[in-house]
Structure formats: structure tokens, C-alpha cells
């Protein structure tokens, strides 16, 4: 196994700032905008992006939390269940622009589950997707609207996003089979 840091702490900060700017740019401000982070890393990233938007636009964007476990398509075939935790969307989604935030975009299945779950909470005008890393290998017709960094990977590689909220030093690691 070789292990290398592909984004460091500064790099993560820069990527999130750029994503925050692009979100404001694309949506012409923050009117009707909500961020929803996908457990667990997506929540931290969503909160950081919301913070950046606040610095730029001087206004609060609501942040929700999505636990997609119950919407996963592999839940009944995999042995052992991930613990179910709460989804927290304490605001109405109808007529809103929802930006889903996740750390890594890979097969697209997580995003499919997330979209299904968001739809069950209301009827947003639009759903957009922001990810820190896009590593390719999509299995569904899904693409991200905002990408921190595209990283071509082999299927056997592992990408780990480590964040200070989890008590670790901010960085993104690529582990590859030799």
C-alpha cells in the first residue's frame, strides 16, 4: 500500500472557498439556498461552505444533515448494518435550491439515495451537488456541479478525507495497492 497526501489543509480551504464562490455565482446570490451535508464528512464540509458564504455574502444559509442509510440500495445485501442516525432538516425544502454536499463522488449511488431522501422531505426547485473530490468510476448518470478537485484513481484505490472536526489534521489521502 502506498499512501500519499493529495490535498493538504490549505488546499482544502482553497477548494471550499472556490466552491462557495461558485455556488453564489451560479445561483446569483443566496436567496432560497440551503446546504445539506451527507453524513458524516459531508456535514462538516457543508458547515464550512456555509461559513465561507456567510463571510462573503454576510448572510446565513441553513444547513441540514442527511443520513442516507435507509435509502441505500445495498442495505439488504450487505452483511451487517451501519448504524442508522438521524436526518436533521429542520426547514422546508419546497421551492428551495438544495446543494447536497459530500466528500467524495464515486459510483454516484450515495447521491442517488440522497436525492431520493431529499425528495421525500419536499419538492425543491433544484438540487445541485458539491463534492470535495471526484474520483470517477460513475455507475449512474450523475455529475457534480461543484468539484474541489478531480482525481483520477484506480478502482482498488482508497480515498480518505480527514477533517479537523473528527479530531484529525485536515488532508485528503490516496491509498493505492502497489
Amino acid at each position, binding site marked *: 500500500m502506498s499512501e500519499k497526501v493529495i490535498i493538504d489543509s490549505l488546499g482544502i480551504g482553497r477548494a471550499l472557498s472556490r466552491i462557495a464562490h461558485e455556488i453564489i455565482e451560479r445561483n446569483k446570490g443566496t436567496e432560497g439556498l440551503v446546504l445539506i451535508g451527507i453524513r458524516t464528512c459531508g456535514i462538516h464540509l457543508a458547515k464550512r461552505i456555509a461559513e465561507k458564504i456567510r463571510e462573503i455574502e454576510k448572510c446565513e444559509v441553513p444547513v441540514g444533515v442527511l443520513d442516507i442509510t*435507509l435509502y441505500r440500495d445495498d442495505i*439488504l445485501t450487505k452483511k*451487517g*448494518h451501519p*448504524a442508522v*442516525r*438521524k436526518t436533521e432538516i429542520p426547514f422546508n425544502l419546497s421551492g428551495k435550491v438544495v446543494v447536497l454536499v459530500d466528500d467524495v463522488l464515486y459510483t454516484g449511488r450515495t447521491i442517488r439515495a440522497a436525492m*431520493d*431522501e431529499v425528495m421525500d422531505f419536499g419538492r425543491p426547485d433544484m438540487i445541485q451537488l458539491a463534492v470535495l473530490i471526484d474520483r470517477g468510476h460513475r455507475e449512474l448518470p450523475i455529475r457534480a456541479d461543484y468539484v474541489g478537485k478531480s482525481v483520477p484513481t484506480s478502482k482498488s484505490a482508497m480515498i480518505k478525507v480527514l477533517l479537523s472536526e473528527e479530531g484529525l489534521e485536515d488532508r485528503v489521502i490516496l491509498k493505492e495497492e502497489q
Partner: protein
Amino acid sequence: MELKSKDLLDIKSLDREEINLFLDSAESFKEVTGRDIKKVPTLRGKTVVNLFFEPSTRTRTSFEIAAKRLSADVINFSISGSSMSKGESLLDTARNIEAMSSDFIIIRHSASGAPHMLAQCLKSSVINAGDGSHEHPTQALLDLVTIKERKGGIEGLKVAIIGDIAHSRVARSNIYGLTKLGAEVRVAGPPALIPAEIESTGVSVFYNLKEALSDVDVIMVLRLQLERQGKNYFPTTREYARLYCLTAERIRDAKEDVMIMHPGPINRGIEISPEVADGLSSVILEQVTNGIAVRMGVLYLLGGRGEA
């Protein structure tokens, strides 16, 4: 963390971690039951069979709602004792049902151990919805969730269980669950309704209600099965009420913020006085919601032991 068994047959064989896993899941599923759209696609394509040999609309409905909110298909079989005795055996019935490709079989039966028998012979996950005088695990889990919500935890609580302990599956499941989570459990009732060697399960026995209630955090009152009359377990329900009816007066011996529970339906004036019963309604409603959340969690967690 993974469950050891494909089935939920009793609380006795669960360890502390497993019980906590069920309780934590229930909390998460309670959030789902609070959504506008209360249905999640988790068990889509799965079939849940309710196999009830004793009538119990409340428990059956609770399981049915739980399964439906997880998008499972639900089939209800209510089989009365008489048609069973002349017809096929329990095992035949269950095998036939499994042949309809069920994934979960939820069974309520008047014979202790009936769910165990099915679990040994069937591939489906078997969930015990109450067997004879043995256990009623999902009832205990929902009681634990409710107590935990009200009291912030289970460890160190003093809990008194009052009434017909000998014939109560709710009592057994709660005794195991509460003691495993570190509560101090007392049981009280007339001698004939306290089963042999119950102390060895880690509870203390009281015949005097006043002593049993002294300083307790939770009082669980069991329903007195009226058909127990005339078997000399106690002289009359009138005399039973004289000694064991939970009245406002008697509650004063407990802690000020004592929580009172009853698995229902209540015999007012026998095991519990009308005034105390009236004060119970809030907990009872809470129990309904918790019951669905607990059962969603149970289905979800057992379903996760997938065949791959």
C-alpha cells in the same frame, strides 16, 4: 457492531451492547416517524408475515405500521386456537408461510418457546411478539426507550414491577433488559404470583407494596389476568386490590418524579386506581410512537444480517 442472531426471540440472550444498539436505532427511527413522509425504502421487496395465534390488535398493528414505513409488504395471519387444534401443526403452518418467501415472521403464541421452535426450522428472521409466559422482547425495548427518554438513562434507576410476575412475559423481558442495563429491579405481588427462584435473575422480591415502592424511580404495573381468579393465587380481585392496587396514596412512597407505566389494557380499580390510571395517558401515547420506532429498528437490524 452486529447482532449475533438472525432472530429476536428474547432479551435474555442479548448482551448489553445489542440492547443498546436496538435502543439507539429506535431513537433514529423516531426521527423518521416524525417526518411528513414517514416511509423509507429500506425494506422494499421484503415480506413481513404477522403470525398471530392470540389476538392482539395493538402489537400487530404496531409491527404492521413499522414494516410498512420501511416499505416492506405485510401479510397478516390471525389464527384462532380452535382452528389450530384440529388443523395443521404450528411448524407446518410456518413452513407453508415461509414457502411464500417471507423474510420476517413475527409470531405471537400462547405457548412459551413457540418462536424458538420456528427459528430453528426456518430461514426467515423470527421476531417474538410475545410467547406464553416467556418473553415479549419488543415491548421491553420500547419500555426501555420510554424510560430512557424520561429519565435520561437506565443505569442506577430503581424500578418496581408490580403484579402477576409468574405469568407475565412483559415482566421477564423487562427484568432482563433493566438488569442488563444496570437498573435495580424489584418485583412485588402475592407469593403465588412470584415465580420460583426469581431472585436468581438479579431482582429483589417484595410482598409488601409499601416497601417495594419506597424511593423508586419507575413503577411498572402489570395487568392482572382476571381468569387467574379461582385458582387460589389470591382470594379475590377485591382482596388483591386491597394489597396491590396502585393508588395516589401509595405512590407517595416513591420518588417525587416517579414514572408510572402499564402495558395496558388497564383493569381500573384492580391493579391501578382510576385517578392514577388517568394520569397515565401521556406515557401511553408516547409508548405507541416508541413502539413503532423500536419495531422499525428491530426489522432494520435483523434485515441487515442479509444472505448476500
